[in-house]
């Protein structure tokens, strides 16, 4: 629920309660005043009729004035009582106030009842209810319009800022720049967020620099170790066991080197570092790389089939595109089966690389994540597809993976 609606609802509920209480209070007060007024008038009317009675006038206007001759004499007390009388015109019992007086004239005794209807009180209730309902409806309507207007005025900067925050990334290296608002709460929030983003950017930069420095440092160390191992290999006194040990060390170092290089490239891609762009003839690149892989594939009895039916050229960095194709192709050869195939189909703006292979046990959705799968393959460092994905992201290519009819399929759309 939106804040403004929440506040409105709160207002409306409370206003409703206030209206009801006010209605009851006003009704009771007015009712009392009105009854008092009616009784006052009843007394005056009663006095007047008594005067007219003694003057000789006979008034009988049922049910408002009733004069009855009676036998016994009562002392007239003249107070007001409640009663209810059936009215033909209304076809129901209606409330009345009455004064009963006992009078004596010419030796006869009379009972005089003067009444007044309280129907006016019902009218009061209805009138009051109508007035209150209209006021409450008007209040609600006005509140609604005020809310709409204030929502626009007050919340526009809030929503712009929200949009900014949604699109914000610490990778931009800049703190999130939120607009100044006239509302203190928003301003406070903005300043907190600004500080927070500055801190995040700072931390991110430090981390980035650290990992870059670390990778470069490692690269130097790896080169030294690699060169020393290669020198050791030249020693003719080594026996088979020594050489095997050396080889294992060397192979693992190569893997470390590969991981490190991949991480450096990933970091660059993530930082969206500047990469020189050229117009690249994609079929040429694919053909060159697939030819380069042909004898490796052959040694694993895997046939590479290329169907390049497009002359697509893309504006991007040659080295990155080579890496992209290289990683995809080497993956499709690595994760293949004996006598399998790799098909490279380029048509229009899209590339499909599919290869025979067993279904991965892992969730296919994370094949593009770092170190996500293929752990069972000792020759895989698990970063190839992560790099592919980052390159696609950099250039806005769409990439999808699907396993269908014993084929792993990777689609790339270069639009």
């Amino acid at each position: 629920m939106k804040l403004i609606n929440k506040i409105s609802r709160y207002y409306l509920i409370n206003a409703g309660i206030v209206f009801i209480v006010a209605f009851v209070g006003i009704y009771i007060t007015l009712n009392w005043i009105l009854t008092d007024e009616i009784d006052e008038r009843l007394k005056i009317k009663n006095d007047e009729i008594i005067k007219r009675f003694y003057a000789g006038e006979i008034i009988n206007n049922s049910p408002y004035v009733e004069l009855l001759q009676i036998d016994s004499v009562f002392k007239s007390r003249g107070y007001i009582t409640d009663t209810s009388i059936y009215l033909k015109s209304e076809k129901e019992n209606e409330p009345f106030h009455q004064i009963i007086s006992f009078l004596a004239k010419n030796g006869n005794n009379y009972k005089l009842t003067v009444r007044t209807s309280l129907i006016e009180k019902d009218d009061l209730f209805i009138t009051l209810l109508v007035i209150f309902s209209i006021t409450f409806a008007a209040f609600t309507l006005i509140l609604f319009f005020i809310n709409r207007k204030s929502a626009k005025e007050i919340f526009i900067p809030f929503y712009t800022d929200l949009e900014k925050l949604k699109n914000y990334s610490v990778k931009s290296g800049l703190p999130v720049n939120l607009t100044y608002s006239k509302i203190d709460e928003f301003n406070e929030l903005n300043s907190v967020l600004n500080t927070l983003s500055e801190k995040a950017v700072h931390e991110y930069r430090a981390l980035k620099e650290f990992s870059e420095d670390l990778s470069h440092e490692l690269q130097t160390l790896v080169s030294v170790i690699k060169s020393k191992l290669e020198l050791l290999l030249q020693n003719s006194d080594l026996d088979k066991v020594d050489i095997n040990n050396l080889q294992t060390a060397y192979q693992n170092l190569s893997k470390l080197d590969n991981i490190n290089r991949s991480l450096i490239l990933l970091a660059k891609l993530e930082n969206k570092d500047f990469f020189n762009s050229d117009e690249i003839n994609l079929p040429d690149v694919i053909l060159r790389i697939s030819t380069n892989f042909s004898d490796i594939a052959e040694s694993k009895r895997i046939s590479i089939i290329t169907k390049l039916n497009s002359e697509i050229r893309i504006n991007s960095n040659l080295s990155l595109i080579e890496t992209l194709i290289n990683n995809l192709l080497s993956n499709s050869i690595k994760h293949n089966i004996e006598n399998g195939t790799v098909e490279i189909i380029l048509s229009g703006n899209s590339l499909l690389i599919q290869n025979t292979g067993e279904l991965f046990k892992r969730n296919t959705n994370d094949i593009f994540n770092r170190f996500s799968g293929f752990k069972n393959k000792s020759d895989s460092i698990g970063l190839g597809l992560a790099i592919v994905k980052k390159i696609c992201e950099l250039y806005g290519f769409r990439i999808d993976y699907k396993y269908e009819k014993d084929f792993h399929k990777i689609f790339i759309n270069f639009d």
Partner: protein
Amino acid sequence: MKLLIIEDEIDLAKSIVEFTAKENHIIEVVYNFKEAKEKINLQEYDCALVDLMLPDGSGLNIISELKKVQPKCGIIVISAKNSIDDKIDGLNLGADDYLTKPFHLAELNARIKSVIRRRFFEGSNIINVNEIQIETEKREVFVNKTKIELTHREYDILLFLISNSDKVLTKESIIEHAWGENSNAFGNLDFVYTHIKNLRKKITDAGGGDYIHSLYGVGYKFSLK
């Protein structure tokens, strides 16, 4: 040949010196930008290895300086920065070749030889090893004066082995040399064996000696002994 190694990583510089020791080069090593500048203004070199990231300056400046004072000197850039831009900058300034750390010593050795061949033996780029003769310009190989037909890969492997004769070359380094940097991702590197086998057969079939030796599956060595 006289080589200058400009490399701040002392251990790596030592490795390079040790690996190339039998090549009859005169090698001088400097570890920083200042010394490098002094050296190149004092003496002539045939080939210089320049690390781009020196503690007190950029190797790129040394390349331009070298180009000015010793235009004949071949230049190979070595850098830890796996940056494509650095590579382009270095080559634009006139470097002959570019190697990214960590590299194989054998690869560096082969590159040095290649640069020297191109710079100092123009027109007659012929390598003679006993009965084997390689014309590097035309990429042709002769055994006992008879031309043998080698595939692209076989030629690359042979030249790489001969450039590093008497050295054990790992399968990794051979693959990286012949197939390119990215081919090393394949854990199973046995496919190189097929190529070596064919190469040996072609040479011996033409009456050449069997000089390529396998070393317990770790790599290969070209040796006349």
